[in-house]
């Protein structure tokens, strides 16, 4: 089981209490589709993703970004049980959606960039390390049900 220090718990909960899920979710997810364009392959039903402007103004991208943040919140609320929390989501991404699990960290990286630009100086190296650890645990849990 992952061991969290008090600092790490507080840092993660603090970040999630400060960010607007709709804004950050849309920003991080659209960034992922723009910076790593092959990820668009999973979203054929989302309509116009032909250029950055279309992606940034796409309402389905925005709402899916919010869905992702709400799912991350589940992990924040139960940091001792992230693997169990994501067992079903992991199976879904593996069996039904057939998402290459390497993509999880790409989204994680874009989320880090958005959080960093929002928190600016408050995103100290220590807070960054805690956030990185949190994302690593999330990604590892999402990978668990792949074979």
């Amino acid at each position, binding site marked *: 089981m992952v061991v969290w220090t008090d600092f790490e718990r507080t840092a993660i909960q603090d970040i999630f209490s400060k960010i607007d899920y709709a804004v950050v979710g849309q920003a991080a997810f659209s960034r992922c589709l723009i910076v790593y364009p092959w990820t668009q392959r999973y979203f054929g039903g989302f309509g116009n993703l032909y250029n950055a402007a279309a992606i940034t103004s796409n309402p389905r991208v925005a709402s899916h970004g919010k869905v992702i943040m709400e799912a991350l919140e589940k992990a924040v609320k139960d940091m001792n049980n992230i693997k169990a929390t994501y067992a079903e989501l992991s199976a879904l991404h593996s069996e039904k959606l057939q998402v290459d699990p390497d993509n999880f960290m790409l989204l994680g990286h874009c989320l880090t960039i958005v959080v960093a630009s929002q928190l600016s100086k408050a995103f100290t*190296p220590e807070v960054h390390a805690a956030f990185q650890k949190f994302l690593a645990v999330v990604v590892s849990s999402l990978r668990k049900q792949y074979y």
Partner: protein
Amino acid sequence: MVKWTELERSTVKAIWEKIDIDEIGSQIWARVLIVYPWTERYFGSFGDLFTITAILKNDKVAAHGRMVLTALDKAVNNMDNMKRTYADLSRLHFQKLEVDPDSFRLLADCITITIACKLKSALSPQSQAIWQKFISAVVDAMSSQYR
């Protein structure tokens, strides 16, 4: 050879102009050592790296960060010749310093995140994509002499 559009060239230069090598250089290296602590193995002679506070106050860490950014300036000004620009540095990191080339990618990520903290929303998704293309080319050039 990597192909650069006019937009990519001007975006990289515009981002670079906003970076104060002294200010940002001292931060990036601390970030790498704190977020990816195994990288400390390369800096046995840097003195006290035992705590986050020590790393943040360490003059050698700050100076090394500034040195890395000064070297990055060469890439900004030689975007068409990065492999040649970094051939000697690459050989040094391979033969003499024995640095795992995966570390270059970790440093690249920390540079991008530090820039996001500084530039905030000015690092738009398109700018991030262009910057990441640039820094990946730098990482490739630094890895080029590894056999």
